[in-house]
């Protein structure tokens, strides 16, 4: 059976979802209880979880859920807002279309033909949406919104250091929407403490985020039956198993990791062992025993006190370990092993082949190793000495029921994902139609290389790449010297001048390695003498670097060169809005620096709404105007829900009017709520929703097939064979 795909059906579906999810949004949101077919009970406020638990059948609903989950994988936040925003967009579209149809009602056309006509209209709108998403949105973000952004980094220093109080505000706002009302403050404090305890140095926070995100399961322990307030942070690493043998030890504790059984096997795999006599059997048994004994003795002589094994060791090994005062932990998961290896940089102990080579041994020092009892279950507690910028700590999460512990776990995990996203720069690129905005900054734009490239494609391809920004102190006679220099392969793009948007939030990459610093200097020396004309070889090296996966350090060194050259010529256009352009097209690249935040409570939405409305007034094309209007109005849906329960001065209309007035008169906007949210997350959300909407609008027919999914079946049977 085929159903005409219509925006109407999509609206109905999303409206149902909206009513469910809107009750869980924001600080006033409530919990939802989900049961699993296994009988387990899950408590959740996360939109992604709820949508999945509903097991929706409607094809459009399933598509929407798929879009939401792909968005969540990227950002870890915003599922509920996604649905609400989508719903408002569809609603807005509908009213617009209905109006148009009312005017056309006299032309009584055939219903089927009208449908096709509608489809054409939808297609037209979806194209307009696409242009909006790729061009107008970035333009508005860059030109108007960016001056309102705040930063998460502390403003006192040039280095990128995290400001604790801002981070607290950010996390609190995040957990407000994720965990129960009585726990959000506690959990956000816990996470904040955890993060600052794990961070070895101020600059290494990115590594900490990556590591915690990758090994989140290994770094937390869930305990049921205790109140949530008993959750705490434990220094060191907690392994989710008990010692096989425990020998109390202090002083110098060395550990080794093994990935195979220490006792040599009686017969190796893929080989044949021919036994001719009983004595031969006994001798080989004896040899195995002696060898195991010798290896354990050797380990003891190396001062090894703890043996971590990823496999189960035979009784013999544990016995000799106990005799030699070596504690044993067996059956570690591959993730645990790789986490330990990453923290202490220790490679597994390789069993010596011949009995004489015992010298090479990979060991590492630990501060302590002891059993830890949590709710009458024993764990292994290791005080690893970190060699990276992550100081191992574990979170013990307590809760009366497993479902609640899981909710907190999920929320913490999402928070790490959100922060990881926040600390990446966000690239904006858009087209400028009017040519009068173009600046010619010839010394910096290497025309020859630029022209030879089909630009839009390349930038689009590269735009997703993480890159390193750098701050260059220009010692020339220019007063304002701070600017961003960006390298996208062979593109050099200074971004928007920062003074207006983020005071002193200047990311800085300092070469960590002296070797590389030297290289930078070496690179600098010859270029100083060069003239502008000499830039041809330099470009070559630049592009060569970019193809061969250039690191941040290398890029920054090149940036230095660029500025030096320009500085000498006194031609660096620092104060400009720095619109890079091609000869044929006016193509803009800019960036939202990492750590951009806005106050919570619908600030982003109202701001974008305001600027979009302003934009539509200037806009000539009707399609664009309509789409922008619909988006601008749909944006207000989110703050409307957030302020639903508030009354009087804090009701939504009051706040809306106050904000608009402040914007018109260029006064600072006063927010009633404390707490911050990530701009990058919001931006991502907006683009994800628009993409989803485009997808919905381009479908004209839903064909329902009542048959087993054939392809899946084939794939599975292939795997089984």
């Amino acid at each position, binding site marked *: 059976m085929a159903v005409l795909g219509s925006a109407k059906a999509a609206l109905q579906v999303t409206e149902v979802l909206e009513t469910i999810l809107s009750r869980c949004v924001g600080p006033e949101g*409530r919990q939802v209880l989900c049961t699993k077919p296994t009988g387990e009970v899950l408590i959740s406020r996360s939109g992604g979880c709820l949508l999945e638990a509903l097991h929706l059948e409607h094809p459009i609903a399933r598509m929407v859920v798929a879009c939401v989950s792909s968005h969540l994988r990227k950002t870890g936040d915003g599922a509920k807002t996604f649905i609400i925003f989508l719903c408002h967009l569809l609603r807005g579209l509908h009213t617009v279309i209905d109006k148009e149809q009312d005017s056309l009602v006299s032309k009584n056309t055939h219903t089927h033909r009208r449908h096709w006509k509608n489809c054409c209209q939808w297609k037209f709108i979806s194209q307009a949406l696409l242009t909006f998403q790729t061009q107008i949105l970035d333009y508005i973000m860059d030109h108007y919104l960016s001056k309102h952004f705040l930063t998460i980094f502390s403003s006192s220093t040039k280095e990128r250091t995290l400001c604790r109080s801002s981070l607290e505000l950010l996390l609190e706002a995040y957990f407000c929407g994720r965990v129960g009302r009585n726990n959000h403050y506690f959990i956000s404090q816990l996470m904040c403490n955890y993060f600052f305890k794990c961070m070895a140095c101020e600059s290494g926070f990115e590594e900490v985020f990556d590591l915690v995100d990758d090994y989140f399961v290994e770094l937390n322990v869930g305990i049921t*039956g205790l109140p949530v307030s008993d959750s705490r942070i434990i220094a060191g690493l907690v392994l989710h198993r008990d010692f096989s043998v425990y020998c109390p030890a202090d002083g110098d504790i060395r550990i080794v990791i093994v990935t195979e059984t220490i006792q040599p096997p009686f017969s190796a795999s893929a080989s044949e062992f021919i036994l001719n006599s009983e004595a031969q059997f006994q001798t080989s048994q004896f040899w195995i025993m002696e060898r195991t004994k010798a290896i354990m003795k050797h380990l003891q002589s190396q001062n090894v006190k703890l043996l971590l094994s990823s496999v189960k060791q035979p009784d013999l090994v544990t016995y000799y370990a106990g005799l030699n005062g070596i504690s044993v932990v067996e059956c570690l998961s591959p993730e645990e092993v790789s986490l330990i290896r990453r923290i202490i940089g220790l490679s597994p102990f390789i069993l010596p082949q011949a009995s004489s080579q015992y010298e090479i041994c990979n060991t590492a020092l630990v501060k302590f190793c002891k059993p830890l009892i949590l709710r009458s279950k024993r764990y292994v507690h290791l005080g690893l000495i970190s060699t990276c910028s992550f100081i191992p700590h574990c979170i013990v999460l307590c809760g009366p029921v497993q479902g609640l512990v899981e909710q907190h776990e999920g929320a913490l995990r999402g928070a790490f994902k959100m922060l990881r996203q926040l600390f990446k720069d966000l690239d904006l690129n858009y087209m400028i139609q009017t040519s009068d905005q173009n600046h010619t900054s010839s010394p910096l734009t290497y025309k020859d290389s630029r022209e030879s490239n089909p630009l839009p494609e390349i930038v689009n391809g590269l735009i997703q790449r993480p890159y390193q920004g750098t701050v260059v102190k220009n010692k020339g006679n220019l007063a304002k010297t701070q600017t961003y220099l960006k390298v996208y392969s062979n593109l050099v793009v200074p971004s928007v001048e920062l003074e207006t948007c983020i005071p002193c939030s200047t990311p800085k990459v300092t070469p960590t390695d002296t070797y590389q610093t030297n290289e930078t200097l070496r690179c600098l020396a010859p270029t100083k003498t060069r003239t502008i004309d000499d830039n041809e070889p330099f470009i070559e090296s630049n592009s060569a670097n970019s193809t061969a996966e250039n690191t941040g350090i290398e890029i920054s060194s090149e940036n230095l060169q660029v500025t030096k050259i320009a500085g000498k010529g006194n031609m660096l256009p620092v104060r400009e809005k720095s619109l890079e352009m091609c000869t044929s097209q006016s193509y803009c690249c800019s960036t939202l620096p990492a750590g951009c935040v806005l106050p919570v409570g619908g600030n982003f939405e109202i701001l974008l709404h305001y600027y979009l409305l302003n934009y539509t007034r200037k806009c000539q094309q009707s399609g664009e105007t309509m789409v922008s209007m619909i988006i601008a109005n749909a944006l207000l849906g989110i703050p409307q829900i957030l302020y639903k329960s508030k009354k009087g001065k804090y009701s939504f209309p009051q706040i809306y009017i106050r904000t608009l007035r402040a914007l018109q008169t260029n006064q600072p906007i006063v927010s009633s709520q404390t707490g911050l949210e990530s701009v990058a997350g919001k931006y991502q959300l907006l683009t994800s929703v628009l993409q989803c909407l485009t997808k919905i609008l381009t479908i004209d027919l839903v064909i329902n097939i009542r048959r087993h999914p054939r392809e899946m079946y084939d794939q599975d049977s292939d795997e089984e064979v």
Partner: protein
Amino acid sequence: MSRLEAKKPSLCKSEPLTSEKVRATLCVLKGILTSSYGPSGRLKQVHNGLGGCVCTTSQSSALLSNLPVTHPILKILTTSTKNHVSCFSDCGLFTAILCCNLIENVQRTGLTPTTVIKLNQHLLRLCTSYLKSESCGCRIPVDFSSPQTLLCLVRSIVTSKPACMLTREETDHISALVLKAFLLTIPENTKDRLILGKSIIVPLKGHRVLDSTVFPGILIEVSEVQLMKILPIKKSDAFKVALFCASLSGDLSDTGEGTVVVSSGVSLENAVLEQLLNLGRQLVSDHVDLVMCQKVIHPSLKQFLNMHRVIAIDRVGVALMEPLSKVTGTQPIGSLGSISPSSYGSVKDLCPAKFGFKHFLHLIPNEAIICSLLLCNRNDTVWDELKLTCQTALHVLQLTIKEPCVLLGGGCTETHLAAYIRHKTCNEPESILRDNGCTQTQLQLLTEAFCRALESVAGSLEHDGGEVLTDMKYGHCWSSQAESPSVVNWPDLLSRCGCGLCSSQEELGWSFLKTPPHPTAPQTCLPHEAIGSSNNLTLDCFTAKLSGLQVAVETANLILDLSYVIEDKN
């Protein structure tokens, strides 16, 4: 292929608590729990119509684990209670009843969940900080120099489990035994950390409760035949012990991943047996007196050892391995080859013992931190209940060592706390109102709901139709005989309060729990002379009750916060 089947859509219900069905089931559950609470609680018989044994109990752990609940909300409530019990063993019913009461009372107020949760959390914080503070009027420090307080604590636990069917004399006996068993697990000389030993409960069903005893060391059950073989045990001042964790059955151990080709005429079994006998010879030459094995010992090796007057006991089981290795000081041996002399241990004495129809070998250690509690009761059902009770009591004693104080039992803590909270919110509401952004009326409504919930827990202790009262001075809980005359002189009717600390001699000013309260500050100082003298107090475990209170409020908050229930119908 089942996973290819399309999933059925889930069922989504909004505002689950408003549904009449949920309220009714909650009410039924509450009825079951409250009627089982306390020393005079009624027993529940849980049996499965399809078979299985009948369980007669009044304990939360047995009750909730046997009671199947289907509604997700009830599931949350029962799991959170069960989780609490598995952490603390005690105060399970208290937690569950308080949680039910809170949900019921709060719903009646009709406040929004946001306000309720904020205020509940605040009141809970008031309670916990009061209970932890020095000025707390319902907390007594434990004096470890005299066993009186601990004995009262154990006795309170034993008496609160009526399904054990103990007489007064039996209660005293069991309480004393449990305390003794606990004291035996405390090591004599500790270094920096106190590591407690273990009490092993040995079952002996079908005997009088008064036959129960406690022994230092370990009782290993052996068959009569086996014991006959061992006897007579030669006398010496210490017995050398070897404990094996590896199997001595003579099976071929793991031969690796490759293929083993055995020539005809070569018997590997013989080779292994030869190895075992060599091991036996080494044990004999090392003058080992007792060989124990977690798994099976080969009959030939057993025979060999017996011939050389070495006692061999196999199939000890993994549960006894750790206590055995602790008691004897051995290192469990995992090798069939040479044994390092350092892995042998010793026991002071070894003697056969017979209790009822069971034969035991009694290992008496040099230093006792492991003891065996031989527990007798008349039949299986009451024995199970008694065992649970003893485990609870032992666990509570361990918790009390960590946090050396106890709370007043018999409902006095609950009424006292309620009085304190009422007084606090009535006299200093400003800070609470400011922190939570609510009105004075909302606070009053919720405080009343919260305090009533606490008081109803205390009220649930009374099952015989008597009145429950509270006094104005200490805020303790009193209960009167049923069918008392309407106009009475209270001091004549009431003799002692629930915990037994206060007597009715003083003019205290009683009021019914049901009547509207007068918020007066409960006196925080206790009649301390009473604590020392009284040896018949009812006490509760501090850690368990505190955590139970927190878990109850948190669970209630969680349930009240639910706006949807999504049931997966797959």
